[in-house]
């Protein structure tokens, strides 16, 4: 039989064989506290090292307490989740963890969002009976992520994300016993490692041990500087998640309030990265069509499949891990960088100011964007195209500190010209979205016909690896999609071994795409939040009147007034990039 009977706190429960005590209890409404455990349903991500021992429960007849997260329930098991013995152990373990944790919650970046803080509250810890040496570790600051390991509780979630999900392999436990710490090999700093800055470690860290580099201060100073014109761009995934920071339901679209908030913060122009996304489609789509037609003509030098290049963590990943294949990804810059480049050339010219007097701020669901905007190739004479990239969380903090009642804000519209966008640009924020946007444009440019339908549901979903074949008027175009770098690695290895049948592949580093980015409001292990954000973006797309990038009137105007053609020399100079071999 695959069905077993157990009792949890004297309540009978019938579960399938293989169910953990934690799940069995949950099925009858008993929530056993957990700390290191994290499960993202549908994304196939689970961390259960059985290390924190907060979830220990008493099992009748068993010598010691059982960790609920990794102990399978067996037939006839009698489980007590709140016996004195279990509670005493749980509280003692919690006190031990707290005894090795700084108590500077009041000034911690994670305050209010800290799972350790919540757990201490939930367990009713009022005194820490154990005092002694505390772990100390040097602070490690990189361009995007700060490691404050004296706050690490060794839940190992970051390690699981870095190794199992992303296969980047930077973070792992080193040293032993009380001096154990999660660090890159030889305890080198993050910026010397092959870290991609995807920020998934930050996204799952329960405490303040891993956070993003805070650029809010610099932005506030720029806004206060009367000599500067400060403009802002916001990435698509931000509008589907920012509301969570203000107690709104996950999946609430807050585009209008977002614009209003940014205006109140004092930005001179509020623009949309979606414009950059539409521009990316023009360039990347054209590049795809070029490679396709060369392929059809039998050019043996053509590199296929083409890989998307919007995601900076993904770019850094292949530069480190697959440098032999750096000619394969599209040379198109990411929407953030296309926007910055156009802002500091075309738009600065329009305003009649020097690029040095224009400050470009971006609001991103991402921590890697902080790194991307600092890459040398994205600056002119040392002046970066994008000056500061803030995460969704940092923007929320700015809004709060500026006394703005976010929920009461009216809906406002983006400014022109760089605020106009299409539904194609919006869906850039989710896995499958970039390639769907590209297909909408590439199809029409390739076939010269209007699409009978703009929604390609076959490209949508949450599966880590997906594929679909789209009929380009008799020409079948094979498309692959991967989100999560571990999945990307699988596709890259296929390409390397010559087995790949794809013409185009979309890759996003974060599970779910940018909606699950490392800079988004913390999901605290709830994958539903990510799915709701995805649905919100598709809703926004449906509501847009223009849904194909090449129909964006301001994009058309930009080419007419400034760039000429997609892939023109000027476009090449401003909107394309080169990749570096970082393995050697």
């Amino acid at each position, binding site marked *: 039989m695959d069905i077993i009977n157990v009792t949890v706190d004297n309540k009978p429960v019938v579960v399938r064989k293989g169910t953990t005590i934690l799940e069995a209890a949950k099925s009858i409404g008993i929530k056993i506290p957990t700390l290191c455990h994290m499960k993202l349903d549908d994304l196939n991500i689970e961390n259960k090292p059985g290390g924190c021992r907060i979830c220990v429960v008493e099992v009748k007849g068993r010598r*010691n307490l059982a960790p609920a997260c990794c102990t399978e329930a067996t037939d006839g098991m009698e489980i007590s989740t709140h016996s004195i013995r279990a509670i005493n152990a749980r509280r003692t373990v919690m006190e031990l963890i707290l005894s090795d944790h700084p108590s500077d919650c009041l000034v911690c970046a994670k305050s209010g969002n800290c799972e350790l803080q919540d757990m201490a509250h939930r367990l009713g810890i009022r005194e820490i009976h154990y005092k002694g040496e505390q772990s100390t570790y040097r602070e490690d600051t990189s361009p995007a992520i700060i490691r404050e390991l004296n706050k690490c509780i060794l839940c190992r979630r970051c390690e699981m994300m870095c190794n199992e999900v992303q296969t980047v392999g930077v973070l792992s436990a080193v040293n032993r016993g009380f001096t*154990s710490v999660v660090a890159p090999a030889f305890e080198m700093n993050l910026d010397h490692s092959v870290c991609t800055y995807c920020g998934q470690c930050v996204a799952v860290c329960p405490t303040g041990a891993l956070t993003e580099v805070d650029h809010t201060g610099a932005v506030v100073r720029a806004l206060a500087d009367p000599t500067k014109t400060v403009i802002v761009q916001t990435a698509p995934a931000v509008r589907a998640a920012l509301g969570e920071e203000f107690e709104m339901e996950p999946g609430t679209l807050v585009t209008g309030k977002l614009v209003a908030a940014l205006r109140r913060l004092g930005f001179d122009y509020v623009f949309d990265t979606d414009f950059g996304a539409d521009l990316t489609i023009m360039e990347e789509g054209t590049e795809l069509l070029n490679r396709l037609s060369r392929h059809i003509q039998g050019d043996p030098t053509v590199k296929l499949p083409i890989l998307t290049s919007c995601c900076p963590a993904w770019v850094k990943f292949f530069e480190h891990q697959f440098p032999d294949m750096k000619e394969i990804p599209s040379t198109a810059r990411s929407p953030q960088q296309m926007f910055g480049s156009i802002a500091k050339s075309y738009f600065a010219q329009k305003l009649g100011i020097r690029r040095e007097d224009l400050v470009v701020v971006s609001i991103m669901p991402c921590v890697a964007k902080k790194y991307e905007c600092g890459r040398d190739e994205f600056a002119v004479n040392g002046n970066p195209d994008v000056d500061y990239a803030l995460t969704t969380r940092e923007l929320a903090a700015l809004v709060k500190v500026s006394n703005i009642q976010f929920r009461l804000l009216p809906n406002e519209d983006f400014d022109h010209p760089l605020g106009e966008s299409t539904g194609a640009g919006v869906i850039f924020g989710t896995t499958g979205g970039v390639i769907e946007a590209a297909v909408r444009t590439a199809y029409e440019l390739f076939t010269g016909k209007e699409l009978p339908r703009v929604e390609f549901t076959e490209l949508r979903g949450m599966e880590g690896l997906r594929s679909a074949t789209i009929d380009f008027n008799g020409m079948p175009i094979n498309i692959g999609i991967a989100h999560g770098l571990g999945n990307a690695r699988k596709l890259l290895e296929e390409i390397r071994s010559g087995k790949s049948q794809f013409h185009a592949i979309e890759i996003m580093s974060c599970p779910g795409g940018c909606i699950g980015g490392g800079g988004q409001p913390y999901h605290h292990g709830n994958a539903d939040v990510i799915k709701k954000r995805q649905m919100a973006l598709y809703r926004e797309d449906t509501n847009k009147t223009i849904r194909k990038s090449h129909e964006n009137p301001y994009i058309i105007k930009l080419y007419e007034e400034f760039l000429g053609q997609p892939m023109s020399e000027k476009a090449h100079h401003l909107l394309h990039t080169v990749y570096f071999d970082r393995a050697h």
Partner: protein
Amino acid sequence: MSEYNMQILICGGTGCKASESEEIRNSFTELLNEYGLEEEVQVVTTGCFGFCEKGPIVKMMPDNTFYVHVKPADTEEIIKEHIVKGRQVERLLYRDPVTKSVVHDSKHMDFYKKQIRIALRNCGFINPESIDEYIARDGYQALGTCLSERTPEQVIDEIKKSGLRGRGGGGFPTGLKWEITAKVAGDQKYVVCNADEGDPGAFMDRSILEGDPHSVIEAMAINGYCTGASKGLVYIRAEYPLAIARLKIALDQAREYGLLGEDILGSGFDFDIEIRYGAGAFVCGEETALIHSMEGCRGEPTFKPPFPSESGYLGKPTNVNNVETYANIPVIINKGASWFASIGTEKSKGTKVFALAGKINNVGLIEVPMGTTLREVIYDIGGGIRGGKKFKAVQTGGPSGGLLTSEFLDTPIDYDNLIAAGSMMGSGGMIVMDEDDCMVAIAKFYLGFTVEESCGKCAPCRIGNKRLYEILEKITEGKGSIEDIDRLNLLGNVIKDASLCGLGQTSPNPVLSSLKHFRHEYLAHVKEQSCPAGQCKALVKYTVIEDKCTGCTLCFRNCPVGAITGEKREVHFIDQSLCIKCGVCFDKCKFGAILVS
């Protein structure tokens, strides 16, 4: 074995090697050539004799003469007297500590009288680097029997009937473990030898591998045959170079003789063994941690189930046994399960090897039948407490075990009795303590080891043991309170109850058992700020007894920190703020004028 008339057996264990046993051997070889005796007398380097206290040991065969504390310079006299003239060199013979009379051979020595050597049967008898000598003592006969006459099920049945339990610590029935792995389906299975002996003071497994590596190889092959594994792995700590060297030689010889490799003895059974090195982490004795370490991953345990028998090395069914367990297997096959089961107690069959250490006269490696009492081990075999001091306690089971006090001296040693007495068998470390040992300091010593060796994966072990240690530190410094003693108890029990693996689940045992048996010592540290055994430096005070001080300046001149002042022929004075309590003044004073309080 040879046409030699005589053999000189020299202990080649790590301990005796460190005391120049190799030089002794070389000297014998040279001299025998000089005397033209090389055709008649054979020199053999063997594994450990066990009586390490008296090393280096040289044994003369066939008359069993047992020479102790031999030095390279003694070799000529042994040749001239013993070999040429047939007279024993009396000054090198063992003297019974009680009767003071010389004992001529090992058979009549108390140290050996009560021992039965099964796992150690060949240690000290054969050259571990010679497969022929192993074969001459029935080596590989058991493997031959199994492959040619028995089915795997029959062999497993025999092991089950023998009642052999795992000698690594847990005491899980070996036959049952084999059976479980045998029944799990798998395209590739592994058998693993756990040679990651890491307890302080334990050297049972090392000695077996140094003295009789073939017995382990043979047993692993039998294990592979029974479980359906074609590959064996020996996980051994890299800091056992001699054991590794001998194991490598033995593996090469076994391959050369067709006892490892393809189609062993024409049976169609393929089996070979690889060595994997551990970097010396105590936690890697835990089987899941050991397997992860072999896989090249961080040596830390994972939750069981799945057990290695289902999903072990590289996710394949894996049977893990310890060195000593393996060493018993060939004998069980050769002599039969009922013979083995006739030795020992009801639930613990056979013998157990112990590493006797601490404040005992006969430090060494012993093997006794299960059911032997502690008193027999400590007083008869161990020769009693060193310096005529009083026995206080013995720690069995290493840092995971507990203390056994004099009330348990007559308890027969077996798995269940030791657990009932609040300790455990563990892998076989046995450290004896006398009246001079402070039990709080001992608990702190063991805990210090655990704090160092915790892998850091689970919070109770990583932080809990650290906090326990800090509380003990406070107490040994005279800064503890009654609440601290209660806290030790409470925290110790939670660490046991909530930790992930066997290391954490047992690490508080030395604290809890010393608290149980020696609570008064803890109370003395806390209430009176005194250490009854005078071991806790912070609580010890050195002062000058004015009436006895002659002002000789000896203490003054020897004090390493200049804490003593005083003029010649005047009473000296110790400045307590400078004194580091090294005890030099006490040792140097010829007039008993230094008071330790």
